């Protein structure tokens, strides 16, 4: 699905506000349909997963990155190239666990949550859950099983939105990755 030859410049850019409003409309409609915060979170994650498994192809085609040698490289590629390409932001990679298998992505100005204020009584709603699903789906397609959770959320009063990514296992060891 390489679009490198079809479009020399990305002439179909959509206004960021339109994107934010579209996502907002999606979440508010889901909330009306399901009414239960946990169900909405699950649906958002599924939606994110479906986006992720497709977005990874686009990403690999457009960015020409090579196979990462370790998880740290993966984290850097996610933050500096992937997020930049799709959302135009560069979250910070921090809080590495001592074993090197968990890290945090800190997002300061999340384009999905411009203008959004969570309504009363919906405190468990993870508005940016779609990002968790997308990361999980995308990494699964490159043979990495991860678990992604939101630990801090700007909509709930924290200063940053923090996504915690935990490496679970490699899905197939068919191609050894350099030095193992």
């Amino acid at each position, binding site marked *: 699905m390489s679009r490198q030859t079809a479009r020399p410049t990305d002439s179909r850019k959509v206004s960021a506000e339109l994107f934010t409003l579209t996502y907002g409309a999606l979440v*508010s409609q889901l909330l009306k349909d399901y009414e239960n915060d946990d169900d909405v979170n699950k649906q958002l994650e599924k939606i994110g997963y479906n986006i992720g498994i497709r977005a990874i192809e686009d990403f690999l085609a457009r960015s020409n990155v090579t196979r990462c040698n370790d998880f740290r490289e993966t984290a850097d590629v996610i933050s500096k190239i992937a997020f930049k390409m799709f959302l135009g932001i560069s979250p910070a990679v921090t809080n590495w666990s001592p074993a090197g298998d968990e890290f945090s992505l800190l997002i300061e100005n999340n384009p999905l949550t411009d203008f959004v204020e969570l309504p009363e009584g919906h405190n468990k709603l993870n508005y940016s859950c779609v990002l968790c699903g997308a990361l999980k789906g995308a990494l699964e397609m490159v043979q990495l099983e991860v678990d992604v959770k939101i630990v801090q959320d700007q909509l709930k009063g924290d200063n940053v939105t923090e996504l915690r990514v935990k490496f679970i296992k490699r899905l197939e060891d068919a191609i050894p990755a350099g030095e193992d």
Partner: protein
Amino acid sequence: MAVCVAVIAKDNYPLYIRTIAVDNELKFHYTVHTSLDVVEEKISSVAKNTADLRELYLGLLYPTEDYKVYGYVTNTKVKFVIVVESSNTVLRDNEIRSMFRKLHNAYVDMFCNPFYNHGDVISSRSFGEVVNGMMVQD
């Protein structure tokens, strides 16, 4: 600095009213309610005369002995009303205009919240903070 700020919907019911802490808050509610007539008059008179760009800022609607009432209407017929004290002569027209502009911006930002439904009473925290910033501090 305003003494009362009100946002009124297209169908003339209040979306948001905030007054300073005073025993007789209803007085402000009445003032805003009666100012709606003046707003309607101004909108209809301008609409008959000009077909082109209408000024959103309506200016001084009417002065009472204690207060001056200013109005502003958006293109979607949402009205903002600000009441200031007559004794406050420092406030110039430009400042009132800029207050309305800030209000309008805050209203638009609040409206973009996907959880806000058109016609709901306004309960947004950030909108409340903007309004607080322009009320008389006691």
